């Protein structure tokens, strides 16, 4: 029996996708914040990519100054609320909390963070006074965590920031990709709304930057351009059967789940291909959508999975079964998916090889490929002078986030190859500082 029934109503969906980090009430926040030791040179801060002053905001919560706490958080990270909910805190701040050194439960930093940010999101309290406009204009391609963070920081410093976004909603993968049990659409969008009201930048939706002319226009109209386009669609596996009905890319499946889950019909038996966090999410999500059986198939050993251990645990809790050392050869079926043909593998000296004669077929009626996202080469290749690394990421100066083409800066997944929301938020903000330096040094 599956753990979850197919959600028939909106309430069913919300129950199946119940928040794993629900909002703390005032009592929880008071008691939990009271436990923080206020460490010196705190390891939790060092573990946060945006270096939020965690002991400070926890102390502010404890002394009844939640909006001060929210300001501390937003001073370092414009995606403060989203990050509290979607960050892999177990391997970041909470994983570094000194309490874990003695087997005591780490401080619930993520949830405390949300307790504070939620307060200002609800009241809309103005936290920032932007500097007077300096007349300079910056174009930002992509309204993901990197792009929006860059826009916030630039607007704060007096720039006119205009964000060009291909889709019709802001926040990039935060609303289109992150699992719904981590954060709801409403929560993501409330923060975006809050940021736009605080800083007043403009987002042009349904405005994909595609052609050389588009780029030329940006270059002439703006003093600098930030590239925050993230990664693209799910990469092809280059194997027969990929075009069959019910064979989907994970990113596309999840986007539909987030925006229009009522339209999704998961199969009875779903096979998810991959061993990264996206694979774990897609598997969990299929199970929560009511699939009878969800199998996670990974080419290598369980220990070699790219996914965090707690993400795999979460998937197992949802009823997902993992099979390891199996490589897909072909997706079977006439017009619809009917199964996957695998071959077993083994790892010798870190190299995997297939075991001849070990082929087998696993029947299923849906396949989700979670085998990585493509790079945004189509767009990036059109920017002459912009160099990419061999893996397709944009080459940048690590201090300023400037690309090899001086007017262009870049950050987030497009430059780091695919990390977390918190990294993109950090890089977008730091790139804004790089842009400011570039535009003030020039003359």
């Amino acid at each position, binding site marked *: 029996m599956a753990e979850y029934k197919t959600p028939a109503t909106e309430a069913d969906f919300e129950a199946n996708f119940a928040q794993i980090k629900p909002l703390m009430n005032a009592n929880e926040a008071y008691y939990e*914040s009271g436990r923080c*030791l206020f460490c010196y040179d705190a390891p939790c801060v060092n573990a946060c990519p945006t270096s939020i002053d965690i002991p400070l905001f926890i102390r502010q919560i404890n002394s009844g100054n939640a909006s001060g706490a929210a300001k501390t958080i937003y001073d370092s990270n414009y995606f403060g609320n989203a990050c509290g909910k979607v960050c892999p805190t177990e391997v970041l701040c909470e994983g570094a909390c000194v309490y874990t050194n003695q087997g005591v439960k780490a401080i619930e930093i993520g949830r405390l963070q949300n307790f504070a940010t939620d307060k200002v999101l609800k009241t809309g309290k103005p936290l920032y006074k932007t500097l007077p406009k300096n007349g300079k204009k910056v174009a930002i391609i992509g309204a993901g965590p990197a792009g929006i963070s860059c826009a916030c920081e630039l607007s704060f410093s007096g720039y006119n920031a205009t964000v060009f976004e291909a889709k019709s909603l802001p926040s990039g993968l935060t609303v289109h990709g992150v699992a719904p049990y981590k954060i709801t659409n409403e929560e993501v969008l409330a923060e975006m709304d809050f940021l736009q009201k605080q800083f007043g930048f403009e987002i042009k939706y349904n405005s994909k930057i595609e052609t050389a002319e588009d780029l030329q226009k940006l270059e002439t109209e703006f003093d600098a351009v930030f590239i925050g386009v993230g990664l693209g669609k799910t990469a092809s596996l280059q194997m027969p059967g990929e075009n069959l009905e019910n064979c989907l890319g994970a990113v596309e499946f999840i986007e539909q789940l987030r925006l229009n889950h009522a339209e999704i019909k998961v199969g009875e038996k779903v096979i998810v291909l991959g061993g990264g966090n996206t694979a774990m999410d897609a598997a969990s999500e299929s199970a929560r959508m009511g699939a009878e059986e969800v199998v996670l198939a990974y080419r290598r050993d369980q220990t070699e999975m790219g996914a965090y251990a707690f993400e795999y645990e979460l998937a197992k809790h949802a009823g997902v079964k993992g099979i390891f050392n199996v490589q897909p050869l072909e997706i079977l079926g006439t017009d619809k998916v009917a199964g996957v043909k695998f071959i077993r593998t083994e790892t010798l000296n870190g190299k995997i090889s297939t075991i001849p004669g070990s082929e087998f077929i696993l029947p299923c009626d849906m396949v989700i490929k979670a085998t990585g996202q493509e790079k945004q080469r189509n767009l990036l290749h059109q920017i002459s002078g912009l160099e990419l690394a061999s893996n397709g990421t944009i080459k940048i100066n690590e201090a300023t986030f400037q690309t090899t083409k001086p007017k262009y800066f870049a950050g987030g997944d497009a430059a780091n190859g695919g990390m977390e929301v918190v990294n993109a938020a950090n890089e977008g903000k730091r790139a804004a500082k790089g842009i400011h330096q570039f535009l003030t040094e020039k003359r």
Partner: protein
Amino acid sequence: MADLSINFAGIKSPNPFWLASAPPTNTGYQVMKAFDAGWGGAVWKTLAVPVINTSSRYGSVNYKDKRMVGFNNIELISDRPVADNLREIEEVKKRFTDSAVIASLMFQTREEWHRIVRDVENAGADGIELNFGCPHGMCERGMGSAVGQEPKVLQTIVEWVMEVAKIPVIVKLTPNITDITQPAIAAKAGGANAISLINTIQSLVGVDIDNFVPYPIVDGKSTNGGYCGPAVKPVALNMVKNCAQIPGFNLPISGIGGIETWRDAVEFMLLGSGSVQIATAVMHYGFGIIRELTSGLNNYLDEKGFASVNEIVGKAVPNVTSWENLNLKYEVKAEIHEEKCIECQLCYTACEDGAHQAIGLREGSRIPYIIKENCVGCNLCSLVCPSEGCITMERVDDGSQHLTWKQMTAAGDIPTDFNDPRAGGLLHHANPTEQAFVTKRPLHYEAKV
């Protein structure tokens, strides 16, 4: 099983734990319930006229997740008629012959005192406690702490009481006085059989910062109250010790103030308390705490090989001396037991900013180390360390030398001016003219400048 029973100035009770005169002893119903739970005695909520109810009346000091680490009240004595109290004392004593009932009293004239003493004796009380401690309300009318602060007045009233009292009389002292031994001596001079201390400490527990009124609030105004609960224990311990050390005093002492666990109680006993009284902890957790108190005390006595409570009363008193008698040659230094370190670096920042810059940080490790030359052995790091037993203070002198300030004074060998090397100032590691002593500045300091 050690013998927990006591005979306190002639008041016998099955264990040394008494309810202090406070709301838990307001009615016969409560006192009987307490005795059923196992309390050894109860000092009845102070009997007096007039009967007054104050609303609201309590305030609390909360520390992080802990509530009521300090507690404050502005209520007056019993809110019930004296006649009702007397009747209930009689009922309780009929049902509970072993447990002690002590009547707390606060009156004004000699005649009133005489009458009430006879009344409570007739009701069957085992003892009397004179409330000379209440620091709010009653003192404005010349009672409570107004008496406790005037040794002469106190002595006179004790004498009035002793004129008629046939049962033991305890005088309850107020801590709102510079020298607690003066009222203690006056109580003895007046003929009292025992003393008890402390009553509450005059306080303002906090301020409502939205409405600009201190707590607790009575129709937009407040008044000073009396402070008690865990936070006052150190003040109470010191005053109990001071009374226990009065030469030739010899009156039994009932210790009160911030007692919550058996450990607190043992500390009071070691400093000279023959019985202990508890109010706030019962108001917080109810009568049930008596089970932890008796079982803890019993275990402690058994483990230490004491047969009865009496054997520990005052055992720590000889070990409290004046500063001039301390051995100045005794020296401890901090030691970090790395296997217990949780790497919070609270010790580092405490010593660096708040003590003697005697803790350093190494590149590549979060575990701090002690810079032994700089450590003055103050204990601060071991107190802030959240990991039990992680920082210990280890003796470093060889124990062969003993030198006190008193001896130095007698020998005419004490520092006389600011530059006297005997004061140690010139040898301080922070003194810039003595570079040699600044041996190892903590890494962090250099790195961050």
